[in-house]
């Protein structure tokens, strides 16, 4: 096995190398999950408590007015929780990824492996949280006796794909930026909060007729992912135009973020 170390190698995602180190994805994800819930009383319940609580607050305070204003056909708690769960992948994954390089700086400075593994594993952690929380969500569906459009289940992977690609794109971009500019650390919580309201998570897209608001909601890649997810509920009509736009935007985010990350990663150990 011959290798060469030079000052600047050509720009690529480095899939071959990622495959060589594939076991590290498992170990980083496994470590983060393990550490996250160690020494907690509620353990994995935390994965569901946060979205559940947000759903509760919104149901109590604004649920009724949103339903009456937008003619929502599905029970608001189900609508909101489905949104919060998917949003959790994006917000959790993106912010974990953005902080991941700095928080693993001691490893980065001492050992080489494809750096992309760290932010990607951070997103896998959020994805696993999502699957745990989904179990509770299914109970909620039975509780509200929501009719399920079973053929829409096949579109769920696409929904997750769009969400993960977006989270990875933004996450890797911010992670690389965070190494150089620690301001990013303070931007992230604010960004997550602001984006929650710029995404149709807790309200449907037709809540506002404002063209500007519609434009933003359309361009937001999570909109399409949410559309696909809510296609599960009988009576909800999916806007496929939004889905395609989201798919395109998420891939664009992904490529931009990952390439920026790859371009700057060789200097991480010098800067961090």
């Amino acid at each position, binding site marked *: *096995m*011959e*290798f*060469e*170390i*030079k*000052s*600047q190698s050509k720009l690529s995602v480095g899939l071959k190398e990622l495959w060589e*180190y594939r*076991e*590290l994805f498992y*170990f980083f994800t496994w*470590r983060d999950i*393990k*550490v996250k819930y*160690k*020494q907690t009383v509620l353990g994995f319940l935390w994965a569901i408590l946060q979205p559940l609580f947000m759903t509760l607050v919104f149901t109590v305070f604004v649920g009724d007015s949103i339903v009456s204003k937008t003619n929502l056909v599905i029970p608001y708690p189900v609508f909101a929780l489905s949104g919060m769960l998917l949003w959790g992948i994006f917000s959790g994954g993106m912010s974990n990824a953005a902080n991941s390089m700095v928080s693993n700086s*001691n*490893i*980065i*400075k*001492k*050992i*080489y*492996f494809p750096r992309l593994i760290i932010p990607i594993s951070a997103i896998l952690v959020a994805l696993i949280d999502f699957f745990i929380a989904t179990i509770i969500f299914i109970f909620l569906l039975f509780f509200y006796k929501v009719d399920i459009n079973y053929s829409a289940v096949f579109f769920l992977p696409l929904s997750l794909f769009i969400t993960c690609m977006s989270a990875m794109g933004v996450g890797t971009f911010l992670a690389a930026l965070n190494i*150089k*500019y*620690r*301001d990013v650390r303070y931007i992230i919580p604010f960004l997550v909060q602001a984006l929650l309201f710029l995404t149709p998570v807790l309200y449907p897209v037709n809540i506002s007729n404002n063209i500007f608001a519609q434009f933003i909601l359309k361009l937001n890649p999570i909109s399409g992912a949410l559309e696909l997810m809510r296609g599960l509920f009988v009576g909800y009509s999916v806007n496929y135009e939004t889905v395609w736009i989201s798919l395109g935007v998420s891939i664009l985010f992904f490529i931009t973020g990952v390439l920026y990350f790859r371009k700057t990663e*060789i*200097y991480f*150990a*010098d*800067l961090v």
Partner: protein
Amino acid sequence: MKPILEVQHISKKFRINHEQQPYLSLRDSFSGIFKPKTVTEDFWALNDVNFDVQQGDTLGIIGKNGAGKSTLLKILSKITPPTSGKIIGRGRIASLLEVGTGFHPELSGRENVFMNGSILGMRRSEILKNFDEIVNFSGVEKFIDTPLKHYSSGMQLRLAFAVAAFLENEILIIDEVLAVGDAEFQKKCMGKMEDVSKSGKTILFVSHNLVALSSLCKNSVLLEGGRVKMYDKTFNVIPNYVKHDNLVSNTSGLKLDFKFENNKSWEINTYLEVIVDWNEYSKITMDSSIDIACYTFDGIKIFAFQTEKINDFDINLAANKRLKLKINNPGLVNKTIFFDFGLRNKGTGAYFLLLQKCFVITPGSLLLPNYTRDDVIIVPNLKFEYL
């Protein structure tokens, strides 16, 4: 056969910012547009470094702090890129710049073995295969399922070294990791390292521990100011490194010289000549004693010589100006030894001049297969005369 590692014209530049900011912030970048730029200075941590490493070799890397050792290792381990030049390697490389990279206090010993092993590049199957041996080597069997935060620091280090000891890569880069644990464990580590080097793996080893270096590494690179100053057999390199550090230049006229009988090295049954010349040095009087002692690198005294102890000899110290001590090599090979030189007041017993490690040498160039330092140290045959 092609060398397993070729280091070609490697240079690394760092930019030193004289404003001393720990890291950049966006505000500084923006405000920098309006302010004159901060003064930066280029610092070449490595400057055109070239050397080859053959397969199976154990290469020591020696140098003072700031000589560029760590930077070189970081470039070899792909952690940081070189500014120019390239390295060609032929084999799987693993670097141990620190033991226990990726250890997490909340995970158990068992979990940390897997985490650390895989970060170091071991396959899961490799870890599983060696798991029992790793745990056995570390000696923490009882606590293997306890979270690492409840381990003592010694136990953590032992576990960490044990994982690293079972790496199966062809090229190993090791930075000062031997300084872990108690004396017994250090001995175990050294033994393991020697086994690894004998198994045909290529090792690059950085250490300030010259005993470890001289017993592990056949060849060494001496770095100075980011350049390769010397690349030779370790026993030729170490004296160059230590001499530089310890020789006191200002002995106000006293001259001290070490010579080999055959002008090259101190072979078995040849003489090493120590010549002391105090022609221009007035402090040696009838009350003085010239002391010369020789130690192994781990501090075991091999022999000592004191003019005071030799009747009729020191009486003439004031009358003479030059002394030659001839030491026969009774069989010292391959292990580095050093000399201390002292001038002592016989009455008070206090040294008024003491040059520690003023001469360092690894006697004998022959590699004797079964020689170890634990062999009986034979007192050499000493001869001395005034010149």
